[in-house]
């Protein structure tokens, strides 16, 4: 064992010795960059988004960027280990929502990492009911809860999928204190689990997305799999940038009818709650700030050229570039709002 430990030490010090000059001489991002993402799926929205951005960045800067779908916990670990800029991370609101909901493996990203530029929004977060549901709208659901009816909502707890549910509870509380207790979570996992919960009659409302559930809203009336949208959480200004044809047979105008202000889930009695799933960069806190500037200015030029927006829109993402400083301010404010929502219903 001694031998190994000594060798390790020797190797480690050799590493420090050799790599120090390399790091110092590097101007901005190294030639080979690893972009870790908070999702383990290479077919999901985080990967797609990251791949689009990575490709544009590596072309623009003439470097290699490899996207690795290691998942949130491993991505944070990898980011922590590397302050040279050879590891960067892209993730979405889950990074701080996981922390707000107290999930294991999630630190406060604002305190432990540097939050970098935002690049895009996935506007798809939605809530659906079975096609034959008595609830025609969110208003019906809140009214039912007020009357003492139990409304079961299928979500995946601890993040993006739960925040809309928390907002619903909060809205119920604002409307009729106590009624929030009638809105209960059915904790499930993936989208297929949530759909299944609806078909098994274990849930009255499910969390879903425009992309994954739209076709279920277009089925024949007698199809037991049929669903209806009741709420899309995106801001109307976000949806307004979506392609006019929308998705499938649901046009942009149809979508706007399910979003604020037409469908209102109140935040505090006056303003509406909204949630856009935004993708942004995260950096190691000790990384050279010059690298952040480099990424900021590269992205500014890439977005000015306008090609990346077309790619993003083709995959139903809404381009949303904010340089680091603005992104940080915007996301901090967003986090604070949601922290209040979660705190308000925490007593229940």
């Amino acid at each position, binding site marked *: 064992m001694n031998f190994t430990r000594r060798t390790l030490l020797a190797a480690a010090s050799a590493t420090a010795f050799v790599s120090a000059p390399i790091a110092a001489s590097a101007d901005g991002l190294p030639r080979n960059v*690893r972009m870790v993402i908070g999702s*383990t*799926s*290479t*077919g*999901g929205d985080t*990967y*797609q988004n990251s*791949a689009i951005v990575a490709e544009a960045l590596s072309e623009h800067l003439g470097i290699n960027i490899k996207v*690795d*779908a*290691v*998942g949130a*916990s*491993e991505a944070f*670990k*990898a980011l922590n280990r590397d302050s040279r800029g050879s590891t960067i991370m892209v993730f979405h609101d889950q990074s701080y929502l996981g922390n707000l909901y107290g*999930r*294991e*493996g999630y630190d406060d990203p604002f305190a432990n990492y540097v939050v970098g530029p935002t690049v895009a929004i996935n506007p798809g977060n939605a809530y659906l009911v079975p096609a034959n549901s008595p609830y025609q709208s969110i208003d019906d659901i809140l009214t039912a809860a007020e009357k003492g009816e139990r409304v079961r909502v299928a979500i*995946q*707890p*601890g*993040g993006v999928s739960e925040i809309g549910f928390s907002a619903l509870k909060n809205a119920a509380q604002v409307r009729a204190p106590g009624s929030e207790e009638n809105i209960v979570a*059915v*904790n*499930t*996992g*993936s*989208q*297929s*689990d949530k*759909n*299944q919960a609806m*078909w*098994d009659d*274990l849930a009255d409302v499910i969390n879903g997305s425009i*992309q*994954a*559930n*739209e*076709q*279920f809203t*277009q*089925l024949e009336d007698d*199809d*037991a*799999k049929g669903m209806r949208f009741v709420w899309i959480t995106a801001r109307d200004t976000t949806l307004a940038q979506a392609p006019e044809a929308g*998705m*499938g047979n649901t046009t942009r105008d149809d979508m706007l009818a399910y979003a604020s202000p037409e469908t209102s889930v109140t935040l505090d009695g006056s303003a509406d709650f909204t949630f856009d799933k935004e993708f942004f960069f995260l950096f190691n806190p000790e990384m050279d700030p010059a690298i952040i500037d480099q990424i900021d200015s590269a992205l500014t030029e890439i977005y000015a050229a306008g090609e990346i927006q077309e790619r993003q829109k*083709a*995959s*139903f993402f809404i381009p949303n570039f904010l340089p680091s400083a603005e992104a940080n301010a915007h996301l901090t404010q967003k986090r604070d709002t949601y922290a209040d929502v979660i705190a308000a219903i925490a007593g229940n």
Partner: protein
Amino acid sequence: MLELITPLFVLLIVGGTMVGIIFGSIPGMTATMAVAVCLPLTYSLGLENGLALLLGLYVGGISGGLVPAILLGIPGTPSSITTTLDGYPMAQKGEGERALKIGIVASLSGGLISLLVLYLFAPALADFAIKFSYVEKFLIILFALTVMAALSSDMLMGIFSGFLGIFIALIGTYDISDGGNGKYRLIPPGTEYWLDGGFSLLPVLIGLFGLAAILEQAELGVPKGHSASDLQVKERSKFSFSIFRGQGTNVVRSSLIGTFVGILPGVGGSAASILSYTNAKTFSKKPENFGKGEPAGIIASESGNNGLTGGALVPLLSLGIPGDSTTALLIGAFTLQGIQVGPLFIGNSPDTWNAMIIAMLIANIAMFAMMYFAIRYFAKVVTVAKHLLFPIILMMCVIGAYTINYGIMFDVWTLLIFGVFGWVATKLRLEIAPFIIGFILGPSAEVYFVKSLESFGDLSIFVTKSWISVVLWLLIIGSVAGSVMLSRKTKTSL
């Protein structure tokens, strides 16, 4: 429809199948990884051509797993685990080539039968599949777990090993994306940094089967000679299609089981071959031969895991829900092209649907042709000297472990941990096959069991939920009774 079949289309399928076979044959590389690696290429290829490539990779990747399973005793992919049980003993008897050919023919049958099912019944089957709630899915997993008993040479030790496998699989986080609450459990204090995600299946698998076997060889001083003791292909062991005489039921049943497991979202690919194997053993006239080099075992396992290919596409194309991890990536290929997959897909995009069916058909045929004729070269691998073969296998295992989750070093350490564990376990007479089956199925068993009780709050739900659950209980009882009777029989005959 014929205009779809361009030379490029065919070339992509054949090329994809070839690359898939290579991925599948390398221990630790999977069909999923092959698809993930090539997914970005499909953006520029367009939808039909992109899918042609990916489906080729899928079919090739699932099939390639049988090569190391049979020749080296290392399952190339989790779904070929039951292939090792009879394939490797055959290879050790010098019947490697024969075993490979049996596996390939079975793979082709499984692939074609499931494709036919996909083509004819996709939407109807998807509607049936959604009748399977947590309860029925738990019973299916439980049924697959009964194979633990069937595989044990010493029933008590075997079942203990199987439960130990389940227990070790539970280490880490109760995964939120499967429906868990995201809390840690069973992690020894101080190891949270490494163990928060638990042990990954693939490194565990190649550690137990690859590294442990090499350690055992090292312990024996790496006896001289080749990996297979007798390479002379004996006259009696020559492959002929007559092996399949009397196996018609086995082939069809296993293919359909594979297809059906594929259709159930979330139940997972490895369950397909395990279930087919359990069934083949339960219904066999000579169940005592299973695990000792019984061709019917290879047939069941391989037609089962290739049956999965068509099955997993059913929920993908008729519900937009992937049937296994590989088809989950296919969704990415669709979204890259801006195409929605959901219940309306087949009706809205008949051309793409037809192209996929044709691609699957060509891929299956290409897989068969390539593997059948490449076998004599594959089989040569056992003639490579051990001092060259073993270090290269070790290196490939490292690559497989490191890349399976896109670059996590702990997965490589997992390989070593379970290599050593496998060596020690064999010495303690723990049984590796039931252990790994417990490890594979443990997490799903947990989610479906706990969620069933969470949703229904009553243990009796497992019997009363539906007629499907009653049928499943009959199968479970049949399988357990079969194993018990068999173990009695072998005991008295000793």
